[in-house]
């Protein structure tokens, strides 16, 4: 412990000197950081990761709670809402939920889940936490930008939260905020102040995301430890790296979309508006195109799906390999498929727009490109299954969630083949089939990835273990629950039920399935309730969990070579060198079923493959170089 403190202090000095100012507080006489610097405005990637995680989990709770409300409406359209009056106030009109507020909840659920939970909460948490630990770096390339990234996210969160409480309600035009609905306060109450807050919040969120992404990319490229070549990086890092690349290229486009919308709303421009007659008067805006917004939005919106999903897939790759005690099958194919997915994710966006009035020829092109993306996705799914084959599987909660993710990824991905086909999409577009599809493949799968990550790296984050049995209960309830909620939605969608409907009672065509909708709502409430088990387990274990050992999962990657509670700088003494890829599990000839990345090949002669013996001379050289290099020691 003492060595650690000294070490942290040394780093601090170097840091302060490097920046030419002293950030120590008055009462910080032992070269320890003050509470505020350590836990609030921290520049340590591990603390920032935890900040992202806890904020993300709180958002997940809120986003989930909103979905419970609209599920009540959908499942029980005749329900008396009076009992919720103390919470929802004037959103209950005549014992009924206000349809405007219904849309507001749908919108906020989408926004919160996509951006605040699955982008910030997932990518923000694990990219921050794992990149330095797994590539062997003391911290992110810029701790300061990293801190800004969280606090921008915090400000953005605050604004979005505030928008829930204003009189006209939060943004309500769907999470895609298509103008003119979102541009005209006359069109719905949520397009007033709520929309302004939404846009402001998102603009700040984008800044946060970009700050994070730049950091992730520079850290991965520049701060890898000796021997950590790109082809020795854990798949988690590859996933975070590619996610950051996608984010940097696509978020600015959303920013421009939002900016133009702000102009249209506040400064009388006509980027998206033309020939509109509303509220008894014609508007002056001429010549704009709502389709332009959709192109800009989905140019982010589609890559966003992969921004959300890739980190989850990366986490899963790592967990499945570790807990199957087997190398991930097709490591290079996994990287290749992620690169292909990342590339293709930029050229499929208009499959969200087949029936928006876009030129049908474009529809053809985008159908082709969209279905191509199914190939690398299929490769990934097959590789996961093959990794399980003849493994020696230990079912930790993280492993359960990872297997669950693969299942959801397959189930949800397959229906994408139907939706990506523009001919079929004519019928299915904006029906519950779509809702079922993306909740499985993107929502639930990514959420499962996030849960897998939390269970797996909890010991590294907090030095304690989460309770496994509660984890099992949490997993099985969630897994069964997710399927019971989203699987039946396919059938509702096949019958043509449109999404974002407050109720279906006025249609003869949609007069069935009320029983199924009630069932889905009950299943959703139980599934949501079972997340409280996780919440309890999480917070309880932070303080009272069983103490962790240094490498509880007997994993190969570098983060488990740090002390149980890694201090600022992560490693005491030199950063370990890396001599091998991270998936040497159950290597024939080796006594144990794992060989950590920092074990050189000259120590594992009995299990080396032929070409690995050739590496030894080079590794000796590298080690000597490391010993001679004063920088690598501290």
């Amino acid at each position, binding site marked *: 412990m003492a060595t650690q403190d000294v070490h942290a202090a040394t780093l601090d000095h170097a840091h302060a000197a490097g920046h030419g100012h002293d950030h120590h507080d008055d009462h910080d006489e032992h070269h320890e950081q003050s509470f505020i610097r350590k836990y609030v405005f921290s520049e340590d990637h591990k603390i920032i990761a935890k900040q992202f995680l806890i904020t993300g989990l709180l958002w997940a709770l809120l986003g989930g709670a909103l979905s419970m409300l609209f599920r009540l409406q959908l499942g029980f359209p005749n329900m008396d809402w009076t009992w919720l009056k103390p919470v929802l106030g004037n959103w209950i009109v005549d014992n009924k939920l206000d*349809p*405007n507020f219904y*849309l507001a909840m749908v919108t906020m659920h989408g926004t919160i889940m996509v951006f605040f939970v699955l982008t910030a909460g997932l990518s923000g948490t694990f990219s921050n936490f794992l990149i330095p630990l797994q590539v062997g770096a003391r911290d992110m390339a810029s701790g300061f930008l990293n801190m800004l990234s969280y606090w921008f996210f915090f400000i953005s969160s605050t604004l979005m939260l505030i928008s829930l409480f204003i009189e006209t309600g939060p943004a309500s035009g*769907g999470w895609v905020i*298509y103008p*003119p*609905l979102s541009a005209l306060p006359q069109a*719905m109450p949520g397009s007033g102040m709520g929309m302004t807050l939404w846009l402001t919040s998102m603009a700040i969120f984008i800044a946060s995301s970009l700050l994070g992404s730049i950091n992730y990319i520079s850290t991965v490229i520049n701060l890898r430890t000796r021997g950590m070549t790109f082809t020795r990086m854990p798949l988690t890092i590859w996933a975070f790296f590619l996610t950051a690349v996608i984010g940097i290229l696509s978020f600015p486009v959303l920013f421009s979309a939002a900016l133009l919308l702000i102009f249209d709303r506040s400064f009388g421009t006509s980027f998206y508006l*033309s*020939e*509109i007659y*509303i509220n*008894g008067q*014609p508007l002056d805006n001429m*010549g704009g195109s*709502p*389709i332009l917004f959709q192109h800009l939005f989905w140019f982010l919106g589609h890559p966003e799906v992969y921004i959300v999903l890739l980190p989850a897939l990366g986490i899963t790759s790592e967990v499945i390999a570790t807990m*199957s005690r087997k190398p991930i*099958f*097709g*490591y290079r194919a996994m990287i290749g498929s992620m690169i292909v997915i990342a590339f293709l994710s930029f050229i499929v966006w208009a499959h969200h727009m087949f029936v*928006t009035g876009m030129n*049908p020829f474009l529809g*053809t092109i985008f159908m*082709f490109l969209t*279905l191509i993306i199914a*190939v690398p996705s*299929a490769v990934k*799914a097959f590789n996961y*299954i093959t990794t*399980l*084959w*003849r*493994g020696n*599987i*230990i*079912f930790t909660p993280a492993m359960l969630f990872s297997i669950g993710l693969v*299942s959801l990824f*397959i189930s949800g991905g397959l229906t994408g083949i139907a939706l990506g*086909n523009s*001919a*079929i999409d*004519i*019928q299915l*577009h*904006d*029906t519950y089939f779509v809702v079922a599809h993306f909740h499985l493949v993107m929502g639930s799968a990514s959420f499962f990835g996030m849960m897998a990550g939390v269970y797996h790296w909890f010991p590294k984050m907090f030095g304690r273990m989460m309770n496994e*049995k509660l984890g099992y209960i949490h997993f099985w309830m969630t897994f*069964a629950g997710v*399927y019971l909620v989203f699987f039946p939605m396919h059938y509702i969608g*096949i019958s*043509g039920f*449109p999404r974002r*409907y*407050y109720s279906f009672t006025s*249609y*003869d065509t949609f007069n069935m399935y009320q029983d199924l909708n009630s069932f889905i709502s009950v299943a959703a409430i139980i599934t949501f309730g079972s997340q409280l088990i996780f919440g*309890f387990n999480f917070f309880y274990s932070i303080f009272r969990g069983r103490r962790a050992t240094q490498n509880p999962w*007997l994993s190969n990657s570098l983060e488990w070579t740090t002390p149980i509670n890694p201090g600022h700088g992560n490693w005491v003494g030199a950063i370990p060198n890396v001599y091998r890829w991270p998936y040497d599990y159950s*290597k024939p000839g080796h006594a144990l079923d794992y060989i950590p990345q920092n074990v050189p090949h000259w120590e594992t002669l009995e299990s080396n493959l032929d070409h690995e013996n050739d590496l030894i001379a080079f590794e000796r050289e590298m080690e000597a170089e490391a010993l001679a290099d004063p920088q690598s020691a501290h």
Partner: protein
Amino acid sequence: MTTILFIGAILLLVIFGMLLKVQSMVDVVRGSFSKRAGFSNQVNAVLFLIFLIVGLGLFYWITVDSRQYYLPEAASEHGPKIDNQFWTTMIIITIVFVGTHLLLFTFPYLYQFKESRKATFFPDNHKLEFVWTIIPAIVLTILVLGGFKVWSEVTSPAPANHISFEIVGKQFNWMLRYPGKDGILGKHNFRKIDATNTLGIDFTDKNALDDFMPGEIHIPVGIPVKFNIRSRDVLHSVFAIHFRQKMDAVPGMPTSFWFTPTKTTADMRAETGNPNFTYEIACTEVCGAGHFGMKSKIVVDEPEDYAKWLETQQSFLSQNPDYIKDVPENLRSLAEQQLPKQAATDSATVVKAAASIQ
């Protein structure tokens, strides 16, 4: 009350926490933590099998049980082709879905941890990778080509013999306009919209004089029908469910779709056994609080019934003779043909009065 509930919840949490502590202590005493995988591992492995069997059972049950509600009966010429595409795709993905899940959920059972066994070191196999890259690629190519064919057909220009009308979305209903006897829709201008002329029909265009605005859509069976789609405020989307067509209504950008209806409303009533069957249009692009109620009806008639219906329709001008004042001088006589005799004289007075004021 709330305080009691709150204290109760806290107490529950505390008790729960203590139970957890006791449980983990028992585990420590038993030495569960020193084992790499205990009884729980077997339970989880078996649960995967149970999940697989129960899940497939439920999947089968709901698939069979919902058969009555699947894709609503297709009533357009291209409808069955889209359905065919859909079901072909569904069959293929169901096979993959079941196949992959059989593997995904039996492997955990088969390869659960055993202290005595070591996992197979199997990091790569190019042949396997090649196979499962190529097979999906081929299957997807076939599906894309099928989709491409149907999509091109559905989105091709409407045949020359089509009839057309205009459907315009506003918060929160659909408005309709048919061309009169001339078969051509007149121009419109959103600045001319008012409480009566809800579509902003431009009466300076002579084609507009006989346009009429019915309360529900009538189309003849067997003849291609083109929907000219517009919106006057925000995005809407015309979803003609039974005809397998959908298209957004975009303010400032006219869109359209066409199809050939194959079954009259009466046919569908007989076929579905539902004497009240009606073709409905739903809005599928969120447009505000009333989005869920933005419904319209389509009546598919035999061509002769359709002709009869057309006969009974009265032009907008004849119902609202006041608008004759918007008709320019040179079209005035043409416009007056639309009006009933009495109204024509009235309107002439109106116009004169208006002129004298100016």
